């Protein structure tokens, strides 16, 4: 299991390779990559600033992964989340789950993302043509985690 909160970009090929090589019986790997979109509510996004709560971020992600491991048979998990200033098009987050079969990997990966979105202490400030503003939490994200 790997959890990393970092400013630097990450290489999904390298991360996927590490995950794949961690267990020779892995049959399925599902990955999610989140990117900074260049349009949000029809406004041109220049960049995002990602803030987090050091210490609690890591422990909340550990807890989310432990919950996923309790529900599905998972061979390995990687969660990487970037902080600091990110330009449009850059990678923000990466979640990858390795398992024997695809159904478990899909469910666990989506579960981890849904709870990361609603339980892990990260906040985004958006810089666009109108200046800067804190991104508001979406009720659709709360709905997504409530269904599990």
């Amino acid at each position, binding site marked *: 299991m790997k959890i990393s909160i970092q400013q630097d970009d990450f290489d999904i090929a390298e991360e996927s390779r590490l995950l794949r090589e961690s267990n020779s019986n892995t049959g399925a790997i599902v990955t999610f990559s*989140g990117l900074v979109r260049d349009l949000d509510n029809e406004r041109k996004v220049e960049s995002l600033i*990602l*803030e*987090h*709560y050091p*210490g*609690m971020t890591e*422990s*909340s992600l550990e807890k989310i992964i432990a919950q996923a491991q309790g529900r599905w048979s998972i061979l390995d998990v990687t969660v990487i*989340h970037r902080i600091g200033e990110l330009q449009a098009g850059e990678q*923000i*987050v990466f979640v990858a789950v390795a398992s024997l079969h695809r159904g478990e990997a899909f469910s666990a990966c989506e579960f981890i*993302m849904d709870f*990361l*979105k*609603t*339980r*892990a*202490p*990260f*906040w*985004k*400030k958006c810089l666009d043509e109108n200046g800067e503003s*804190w*991104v*508001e*939490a979406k009720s659709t994200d709360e709905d997504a985690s409530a269904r599990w």
Partner: protein
Amino acid sequence: MIAVHFFASIREALGVEHKTFDLPKDVETVEQLITFLAQQHGGTWSEILGKGSVMVAVNHEMAERSARLQAGDEVAFFPPVTGG
């Protein structure tokens, strides 16, 4: 001692990132901590921290306003999270 942290829009609205102070004897819950902070800093604090949408964590765990506090605890106030 108790450490209190503020994040994101809450930090900016209050103009404070964190405070560390002796836990007053009559502050036994998060709710009472908010009242104490508002007494010290004025009504804006009560308004900002009193909002139902503000999330609270005690020692890195999400907590209710009724959660009990003790010396050494780390309390954090922040808006709904927006990572990912």
